[in-house]
C-alpha cells in the first residue's frame, strides 16, 4: 500500500468529518499502521485491540476534531496512547491502579515480543528493536518516525516538553545505533533486516 499524498489525505480528513465513508477509509489506511505500531511498543500483542478501541473513539469524535492532517495524527496517537494505558491498567488487575505511567509502560515492555507476528519480518524486526528500548525512548522514536510527528506534537502526545522528546529520541537512536552490527563486519547481517522493507525507497544504503 502506497501512502497517499498528504494533500489528498488532508482533503480526505475534511470529507470524513463531513461523513464521507471512503475518505474515512483512506484516513484509516494511512493512520492505523502508525497507530498499531506505536501501540505495539506499549501493549505488545494487544495493539490491535487497543487500536480498535481507539478507533471507536476517533470515529465518534472525528466531527468535533479541529486541525490539519498532522494534528489529526497527533490526536489519534494521543487517543491510542490513552487506550493503551487503560488497557494496561485493566490488565494489571489492580483496581485502584494508580501506577505511574512509566511503570505501566515498563510492564508492557516485557510483553512486546509478539509484535513481529503482526507483519513482515523486516518491519517486525525493526519494531522489535525499537520496542526493546526504554519505554520513553521507544515512544519518542515511534512518534517521530512512525507516526510522523515533530518533537512538539510528540511532546503533546506524551505530555512532555519538545526538548525532552528530542532527548529521548536521540538517546533511543544512539542506543539503536549501538546495537546495529558494525558495518563492515556485520553488514550482511544488518542489511537483510532492513532491506526487505525498504520498498525501494532508498537504494543507496543497501549498496555496499
Amino acid at each position: 500500500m502506497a501512502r497517499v499524498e498528504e494533500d489528498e489525505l488532508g482533503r480526505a480528513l475534511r470529507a470524513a468529518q463531513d461523513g464521507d465513508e471512503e475518505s474515512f477509509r483512506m484516513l484509516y489506511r494511512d493512520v492505523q499502521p502508525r497507530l498499531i505500531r506505536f501501540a505495539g511498543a506499549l501493549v505488545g500483542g494487544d495493539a490491535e485491540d487497543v487500536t480498535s478501541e481507539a478507533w471507536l473513539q476517533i470515529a465518534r469524535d472525528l466531527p468535533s476534531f479541529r486541525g490539519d492532517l498532522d494534528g489529526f495524527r497527533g490526536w489519534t496517537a494521543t487517543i491510542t496512547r490513552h487506550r493503551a494505558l487503560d488497557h494496561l491498567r485493566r490488565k494489571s488487575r489492580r483496581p485502584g491502579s494508580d501506577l505511574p505511567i512509566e511503570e505501566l509502560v515498563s510492564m508492557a515492555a516485557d510483553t512486546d515480543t509478539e509484535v513481529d507476528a503482526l507483519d513482515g519480518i523486516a518491519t517486525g524486526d525493526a519494531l522489535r528493536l525499537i520496542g526493546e528500548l526504554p519505554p520513553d525512548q521507544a515512544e519518542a522514536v515511534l512518534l517521530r518516525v512512525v507516526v510522523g510527528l515533530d518533537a512538539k506534537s510528540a511532546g503533546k502526545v506524551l505530555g512532555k516538553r519538545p526538548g525532552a522528546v528530542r532527548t529521548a529520541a536521540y538517546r533511543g537512536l544512539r542506543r539503536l545505533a549501538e546495537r546495529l552490527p558494525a558495518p563492515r563486519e556485520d553488514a550482511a547481517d544488518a542489511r537483510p533486516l532492513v532491506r526487505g522493507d525498504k520498498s525501494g525507497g532508498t537504494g543507496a544504503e543497501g549498496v555496499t
Partner: protein
Amino acid sequence: MSDHTEPGRLDERTAEHLLDGADGHALHALLAAAAAPGRPAELAGEDAAVAAFLAAPRPARRARAAGLRRFLTAKIIAVLGGGSILLSGGVAYATGNFPGQSPEPAPSPSQHRHEGTNPDSIPATHGSPDTGSTPTVSPSGTPKRQKHGKATAPGQQKKTANPNATKTPPRGSENSNGSPPGSNSGNGNGNSGNGNGNNGNGNGNGNGNSGNGNEKSEPQTYVTTEANPGAQ
C-alpha cells in the same frame, strides 16, 4: 553506508535528520523499515472502524460549519447590528418626523418625503391638530405611539413610550402650554422627538438614526418637558 556508519557515534543533528526521515546513516534503513507502509494484517479492523464511523451520531456538517460559523459570527453580528442600527435609525428618522407631526401614521411618511422641505408647514399642521385634537391625542395618543413604535423600532418605543407616559399626565398643562409647537411636541407625544427632529431634521437624521440618537433626543425632550412642567 560505509561512509556514515559509525553506529555508536551519532550526533544530535544527524539524529534529528534521521527522525525527520533523512538518509545519511545506517539507522535510516532501520527507521524506514519501521515506518514502512501498512500491511493487510494491520488493517484488519478497517470494517469495524468504518462501522463505528457510520454509526456515530454525526453533526457532520455542523462540525465544519461550526468553524465557519465561529469565523463569521462576529462579522455577521456586526453586520446585523449595523444593519439594525441603520434600520432603526432610518425608521426613527422616518417615524420620528411623522408621529409628532401627524397622528395618522401611514400617510405621514409619504407626506414627509414629499414635503420634506416643508418642516415649517408641518409643525403648523402639527400645532393645530394637537390643539384641535388634543383630546384625541391624549387618550389615544399613547396607543398610537405604540403602534408607531412597534412598526418602527423597538428601542424607540420603550424609550419614547415611557417618557410619554410620564409626560401624558401633564397634558393639561401641555394643552395650556400647547400653543408653542415645540413644547407641544415635546410634551404630548414623544412628539417631542418630532418637535426636536423638526427643528433639526438634518440633525435628527444624523443623530437620531441610531438608538443613541434617540436617547439623546429623549433627554432633550425631558429638558423641554421639564421646562414646561416644572409641572412635573
